[in-house]
């Protein structure tokens, strides 16, 4: 694997990780807060 391919593949991993963290922080947190609101 060439250096540019390696860098591109690393970028993809970073982008996907960032996306998942952001999704967990929005959709996940909104769900948890709504569940808390329902429970109490």
């Amino acid at each position: 694997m060439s250096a540019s391919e390696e860098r591109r593949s690393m970028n993809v991993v970073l982008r996907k990780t960032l996306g998942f963290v952001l999704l967990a922080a929005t959709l996940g947190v909104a769900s948890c807060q709504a569940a808390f609101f329902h429970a109490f």
Partner: protein
Amino acid sequence: MRSDGRSGPDILGGRTAPERWVPEIRSKLEGRFEGLILYLFAILPMLMGLIALGRGRTDMLIADVVSAALIVFGASSIRAGRKAERAFKARRVAKAPTLPRKALGAGCLGAAAFLLAFAGAGHSFMGGLSFGIGAAIATLLMYGLDPRGEKAVSPDIDTDMFRAALDAAAARIEELDQTRRRITSRPLADRLARVVRRARGLVETIERQPDTFNRARKMLNLYLDETLTVARKLAASGLNGADPAIEGKFTEALDAMENVMTEQQQKLLAADALDLDVQLEVLTRRLKSEGIH
């Protein structure tokens, strides 16, 4: 293990093992599991819906059910979008899907996040909106945007027509393969398997060299129809070696088809268009005269 010291590129079609198998396995695994994680986000709204139902809170129940439905629909749409994107990338000639499935999925997940934050967790409208936009951006970061444009062959060939012809040919070859499984005579089934392999090779050649399409189109349609007719008759006849005379006739016909197909593939590559038509006509006449067609 081979004792002559030669490694395995021959069995792998001239490529080394990692080149050939790793991307195939990876793409299969990606296709099966990619996007499944998104469904997990629907579990909590479903549980909350049960709680709301138990407490008799209809407004909360509706918000929870709609959110869960949006998440499930969004996840399915993203999985379908990724599948379409993989197919688009894998083909040399293709048009991007008209429906932006991944963007639609991201929109659905964003709407679910907005609904959960605004109606479920009691955030302000703007607060809920920022949750929604954040979730949509996050989904697009994870799965990317939908492919656009088209991978055209040349201005002379219509991409849609090219794709439709090749897909139809692939479907006919698949039908031929299915028919082959119903043939009881082993030698005839083996011969037909070889014809199927040749036909696949021919389609691959056209896909690899789209400039051969105009010359190969007629042959692709007619030839596959002829072969399919013979295969259906073979499967319906239920031959199992009891009548060597009829079996011999079919064997001869299939051998002729295989040979013609091999020659045609070579001629396609050599751009000998006129000869293709003549050869096709000869084959059709021969099958008719033998009473197979």
